[in-house]
């Protein structure tokens, strides 16, 4: 048996050609080779050059993480892969929309907590709020937990986006 290696969480930024099927290639690579996807986001970041940026959060032992990076790099439409966890420091953010339906005290309490978390109210009705919150995934987890007993209806999360700190690229 290989010695027990620690499982690590890594955030990778992947710059790809914005072409049909590119996301399927990345996702197929993860499922086909049995890697984990904890979070994945994608959007075009450079229209002129047709480039999209995928941010993927994954877990694995150090050799598996190294393989994931090498496997991503050999996909033909991939320009660059940056393991932000290794090459960091990097900042990570996630955005969530959180809907709570409540009346009376719970309604007031949800608003008070939202304020403490610096969540904004995006939509209000007499019996509901929709909050917008940004922060680390842990912060959003904590906020969602607190909303549950107060009448949580739905959560929509973007998944993690990340970027390197300082003046350097990726």
């Amino acid at each position, binding site marked *: *048996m*290989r010695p027990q290696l620690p499982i690590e969480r890594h955030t990778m930024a992947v710059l790809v*050609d914005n072409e*049909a*099927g590119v996301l*399927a*290639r990345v996702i*197929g690579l993860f499922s*086909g080779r049995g890697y984990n996807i904890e979070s994945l986001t994608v959007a075009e970041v450079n229209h002129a050059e047709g480039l999209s940026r995928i941010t993927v959060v994954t877990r694995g032992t150090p*050799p598996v993480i*190294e*393989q994931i990076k*090498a*496997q991503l*790099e*050999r996909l*033909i*439409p*991939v*320009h660059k892969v940056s393991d932000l966890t290794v090459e960091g420091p990097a900042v990570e953010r996630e955005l969530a929309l959180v809907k709570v339906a409540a009346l009376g005290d719970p309604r007031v309490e949800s608003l008070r907590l939202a304020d403490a978390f610096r969540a904004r109210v995006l939509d209000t009705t007499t019996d509901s709020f929709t909050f917008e919150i940004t922060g680390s995934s842990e912060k959003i987890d904590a906020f969602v937990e607190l909303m549950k007993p107060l009448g949580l209806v739905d959560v929509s999360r973007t998944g993690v986006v990340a970027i390197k700190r300082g003046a350097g690229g990726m």
Partner: protein
Amino acid sequence: MPPEAQGNMMSGAEMIIRALKEQGVDTIFGYPGGAVLPIYDALFKQNHIRHILVRQEGGAVHAAEGYARSTGKPGVVLVTSGPGATNAVTGLVDALMDSIPIVCITGQVPTHLIGSDAFQEADTVGITRPATKHNYLVKNVADVGRVMHEAFYVATNGRPGPVVIDMPKDIQVETGVYTGSPKTKHRSYQPQLKGDLGAIRQAVELIASARRPVFYTGGGVINSGPNASQLLREFVRMTGFPITTTLMGLGSYPASDPQWLGMLGMHGTYEANLAMHDCDVMINIGARFDDRITGRLNAFSPDSKKIHVDIDRSSINKNVHADVAIVGDAGHVLEDMIKVWKAGVHRPDKQAIADWWKQIDQWRGKDCLKYEPSKDVIMPQYALQRLHALTKHLKPYFTTEVGQHQMWAAQFIGFEEPNHWMTSGGLGTMGYGLPAAVGVQIAHPNALVIDVAGEASTMMNIQEFSTAVQHDAPIKVFILNNEYMGMVRQWQQISYEGRYSHSYSDSLPDFVKLAEAMHGVGLRCTKPDEVDGVIEEMMAIRKPVIVDCQVAKLENCFPMVPSGAAHNEILLNARDAGLERADDLALV
């Protein structure tokens, strides 16, 4: 429209032919159907490119693989949508696993019908995404030229592999301006050929300090081209070190050379496997630490420092940790290694290397490939020894099917040159050898091309014998007929107490009559003293031949490192495996 564009106005189908011509393609392997009729029409109107009509699309891909592996050029395939494309999938995965450059054009339903479950529609790019190195769906006729050239670039550069281009029928018919040239590259895919010089120096130092070294080389040396094989020979001889090659690397180093230890791995030689197990420095060039090589990973060569040269970054540290990793092309890296070695002053300890050879010679003394000869039945090993001895002066090309016969061929045919050995290693596809032989023969019309086959594998793609007949490809299908799926039966004998569950080749055809019915020639031998005569007769016939060589039915292939075992737990014979010698005579 600018005047120069006018000459470049053409249909998508014509663009495909134009791009193939510009790529220097002389042969394609294909099978028509509704969704590629415009391309077939364009083929009809030209005579630069030869089309080899196969009998099933799977055969087209294997033939293209044989063509590619034996020439170093990419193999080209043309098939229709739906079933044409799905039939090609096995061949595509085979080429992916064995790093064979293939460009496969598939027809597709017209763009406006995609997604409507149209007649013979299949999601070809979806199905072949994990089956290819890369694939394309062309949705605009203006892209055809560029995509075609890019596909060739991707298939042949870096680690080679199959590329699919899915061409909707309307795109084939529409006209547009042809763009693209054979110089087209991919804007982000630019594999690195030269290795890092610092790492190469480090590797050479490690090599110079070795006391029990071994070269372990693979298909990557073949992929790199004949020059890499020459450089490998040069470097290995300079060092005086032993060398072993994988199944895919056979021919990159001459089998007749005293420094060669034979193939390693599950059915490799005793000396090669023990040298790998006991070495202190392992020099891996273009091999990928496949599980058929390593056996149980935690027992694999426990005391060695490992140097790994590979063009594909992901092959490094995938299964086995490399102490010195060099990403680059085998030929380029070998060239630099030789330069650094020549410039250096350090040399391995002569005494240590001499002692190591003494140890290796002791292992060689086991004569691990020996078998019990017989006067009454043809031993498969004997048949291959004779096949090798009688044909080697002609420098034949060999393909194989998959099974015991494949391993015996690897053990008993000595390969002296690269690109003369075509076998399905990574996927292990039964039915590969016959169509691959057709592809090899088409590329080398005057050469002797032999498919070493098993009777069960032969039945998987027997229809391609007709292809050989139609295209005057005088291939020789040399069947070691043991009436069993021998490799399966061997495992059942060793691991399942001899319960031969569905591994008997029942209701076999009469292969001699079959060959005749298909307008080829059939020959048969049943006794050892008939073998030479049949081989000589086979060689003299300028037509496709099937030889039904009826061999011992229950012979097993040794040495054998059972899966999950360590190299030094290698079984040398039936006794090691806990078996009595198979009692063939009683069963004949």
